[in-house]
């Protein structure tokens, strides 16, 4: 192979966004396909699967292969790309009969509650039926084909990536509409007779022939850009002729072969499909459950690994170079650990507490320490960790913890000592429950996690006499945070230690899926916590974590830093901690206080008391977690390779990803607020009035978050 050909064949675009979309679509289809096979097995099952995946594969080839890299140089490459998008990918996707598998592959509740009303909406059904009817589908396909081949619009798509994407999307989706009457993928019976597909295909072939003949025989150069570039010896006119031939010959074959197959089938005797219903549903071994059931054993391994890392971080922090990006204490805790623990919260749950190295040392220490006293009753609230969390926000900025490996090492050492001493003296996990600000952050944030440690069947717990999940037994200790599983209604105060999973003799406790933030919608009595509407301390802690997200991120953007340094210059040296203190107290304490007072004032007009206010405060948790995730994603994206890799610029996808995370947080907050408001009143107007102040507050937080994300940010934890 010569060098030009080999260079051409290695020119893959590989856009992360397209690949992610295709992978997600494949995964959803495959999941739905598997579920469908459990219910009913059909002979064409595998054909459908391969057809759908093949269709996505063709999409991948069209948009990511060298065809895409060369479409701006050669019209023929562009034409081949369009052929794949319009005539190959859509029929293959439809041959996978995608509707049911895709619906089955999505979360059931989302399909039922989210999509269900739309899918059963008569107007939408009528619209979809019309769009897939042969005349409309053919018209849409023809309009899209002609429109985008008009020189003015074709050149526009060549110049602008946005219009280029729109062109490809319209080719693919009108292709789906066009091929629908041909493939008739269902579900349900298609209302038009089968023979209609034959004139439908023939008419499309006529259009295709006319258009390609124009390309071949017009003698006019349609798209001057290709002449201006002249990427090879071949003239732009010859390139146009080849493009026309590609459109003509393979295009006609693609239309005529199905028309012929359908005609043959129409004149053949009908062979009924054979269905094999399974005698009984066989449940395949569930991999996730097998893995999760081993987590209690894996926990010690994870804790051991985290302990070794913590020792390495402390040693490097005390005795290593004090240049933060070159020191483990400047990189691992502030860049990797923070981002990965929030990512774990969003994907699984509170995995940091599960692998906590501090409690590992505490557990070892308890073999010699008494641990017999009860934690003082007056301290059994969250005020102390709330105050410690504010101190953390302040110290992080005021002393530049992220920039000081030495201080970071001391903070970690202090943490080990505090966990050892407190839990060495007091019973249970008093340190985790009443002191640790990291733990509180994870408890509150894990309210939006998609998994929860909870019981599988309440009926099993009703018959249980021993209550090993809280009392413990010979195999495992009971919950040290006093969470009684049958009455535990969220991840609050749960360290994912899995003692209850190990202790339950009925195997009735596990890490089970839960809709994110759904546990905030109700206000049941929660074991060891009570009702959220009665817990001012927890509400304040949640509020600090929410507003703390914005304060912590704002502390590193240019306008805030300039404000701080301006005051520093005016007030003199050694005043920075005080200035940062004013900023942190103002942003994380006074601002939420005023905002909540204002919202509560509006709610009071509707006779809503402090219990309602406390409930609504918890609805802000998703947007707070969204902001933490967006902020920490920034550090992780630019500093993940430190201290080994020097990053010179911010990845182009980063702001988009941050915006998406923040969007998700806002939408979840608004949804939960809406559901909470509906619990107090059945009237639409009253519910809107009750939730509106909180919706406005969350939108203001979102606007603040967007503003922060758009500001120039300090590249912390990296050499630059």
């Amino acid at each position, binding site marked *: 192979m010569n060098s030009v050909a080999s260079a051409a064949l290695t*020119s893959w675009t590989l856009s992360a966004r397209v690949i992610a979309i295709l992978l997600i679509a494949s995964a959803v289809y495959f999941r739905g396909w598997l579920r469908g096979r459990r219910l009913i097995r059909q002979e064409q099952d595998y054909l459908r699967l391969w057809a759908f995946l093949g269709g996505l594969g063709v999409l991948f080839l069209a948009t990511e292969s060298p065809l895409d890299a060369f479409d701006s140089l050669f019209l023929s490459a562009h034409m081949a790309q369009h052929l794949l998008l319009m005539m190959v990918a859509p029929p293959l996707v439809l041959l996978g009969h995608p509707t049911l598998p895709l619906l089955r592959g999505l979360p059931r509740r989302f399909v039922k509650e989210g999509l269900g009303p739309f899918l059963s909406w008569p107007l939408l059904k009528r619209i979809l039926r019309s769009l897939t009817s042969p005349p409309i589908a053919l018209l849409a396909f023809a309009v899209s084909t002609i429109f985008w081949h008009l020189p003015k619009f074709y050149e526009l798509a060549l110049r602008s990536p946005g219009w280029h994407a729109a062109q490809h999307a319209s080719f693919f989706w009108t292709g789906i509409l066009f091929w629908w009457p041909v493939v008739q993928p269902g579900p349900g019976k298609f209302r038009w007779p089968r023979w209609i597909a034959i004139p439908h295909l023939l008419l499309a072939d006529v259009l295709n022939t006319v258009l390609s003949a124009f390309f071949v025989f017009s003698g006019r150069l349609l798209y001057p850009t290709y002449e201006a570039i002249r990427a090879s010896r071949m003239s732009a006119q010859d390139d146009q002729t080849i493009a026309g031939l590609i459109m003509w010959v393979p295009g006609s074959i693609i239309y005529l072969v199905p028309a012929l197959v359908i005609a043959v089938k129409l004149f053949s005797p009908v062979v009924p499909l054979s269905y094999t219903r399974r005698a009984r549903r066989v449940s395949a071994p569930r991999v996730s459950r097998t893995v999760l059931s081993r987590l209690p054993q894996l926990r010690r391994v994870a804790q051991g690994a985290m302990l070794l890392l913590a020792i390495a971080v402390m040693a490097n922090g005390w005795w290593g170079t004090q240049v933060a990006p070159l020191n483990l204490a400047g990189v691992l805790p502030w860049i990797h650990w923070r981002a990965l623990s929030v990512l774990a919260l969003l994907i699984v749950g509170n995995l940091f507490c599960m692998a906590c190295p501090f409690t590992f040392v505490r557990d070892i220490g308890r073999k010699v320490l008494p641990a017999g006293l009860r934690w003082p009753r007056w301290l059994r609230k969250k005020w102390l960790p709330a105050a410690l969390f504010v101190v953390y926000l302040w110290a992080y900025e005021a002393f530049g913890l992220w920039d000081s490996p030495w201080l970071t090492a001391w903070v970690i050492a202090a943490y080990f000592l505090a966990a050892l001493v407190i839990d060495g003296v007091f019973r249970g996990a008093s340190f985790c429950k009443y002191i640790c600000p990291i733990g509180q952050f994870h408890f509150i944030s894990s309210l939006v996690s998609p998994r929860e440690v909870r019981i599988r069947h309440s009926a099993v717990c009703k018959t249980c006499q021993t209550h090993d999940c809280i009392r413990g037994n010979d195999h495992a200790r009971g919950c040290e945070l006093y969470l009684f599983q049958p009455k535990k209604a969220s991840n609050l105060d749960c360290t994912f230690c899995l003692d209850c999973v190990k202790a339950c003799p009925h195997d009735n406790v596990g890490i089970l899926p839960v809709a994110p933030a759904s546990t905030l919608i109700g206000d049941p009595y929660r074991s060891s916590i009570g009702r959220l509407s009665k817990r001012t301390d927890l509400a304040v802690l949640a509020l600090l974590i929410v507003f703390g997200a914005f304060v912590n991120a704002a502390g590193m953007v240019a306008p805030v830093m300039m404000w701080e340094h301006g005051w520093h210059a005016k007030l003199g040296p050694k005043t920075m901690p005080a200035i940062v203190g004013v900023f942190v107290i103002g942003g994380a304490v006074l601002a939420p206080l005023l905002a909540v007072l204002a919202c509560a004032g509006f709610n009071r007009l509707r006779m809503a008391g402090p219990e309602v206010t406390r409930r609504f405060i918890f609805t802000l948790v998703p947007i707070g977690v969204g902001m933490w995730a967006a902020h920490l994603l920034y550090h992780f994206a630019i500093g993940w390779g430190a201290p080994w890799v020097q990053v010179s610029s911010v990845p182009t996808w980063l702001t988009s990803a941050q915006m998406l995370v923040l*969007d998700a947080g806002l939408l979840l907050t608004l949804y939960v607020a809406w559901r909470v408001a509906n619990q107090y009143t059945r009237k639409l107007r009253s519910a809107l009035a009750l939730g509106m102040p909180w919706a406005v507050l969350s939108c203001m937080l979102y606007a603040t978050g967007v503003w922060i994300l758009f500001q120039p940010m300090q590249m912390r934890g990296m050499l630059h």
Partner: protein
Amino acid sequence: MVTVFGAPAPLRVGVADLSVMVQGAADQNSVLDAKVRLHLKRSSATNVFEIVVPASHAAATNKLLYAAHVNLPSAGKWNLEVGVTRGDLAASASGDINVLPPEPPLASHWLYIALVPLLIVLFAANQWLKRNRRFRRFRVRP
């Protein structure tokens, strides 16, 4: 023959992808074993900006081209000179490119902000349909 492609179009302050296609003058075949260097220069009343950066196949999506990611610090007319060397042969081409001020972040990310009201409208439609369905069921009940 040297052709330069720039992305985004039009070029703006910030990171730009400048790709160079080098072709033989006689046969117009792509030349793949040359060394390509981009030299960008802009003089304003107060500052002189100068960027020299090598372009390579590794940085290019289309491996027939030589590309470089250049951080353009200011808007205005820049002079771009492309230097190509291949063995003992050397050639260069130059021209002016116009760099516009950076796009406001809102303009480049409006889609992500618009996503929120769009999904809210869809949710409102979902709730409306649910209420309607409940109401219909209630009406038909004997």
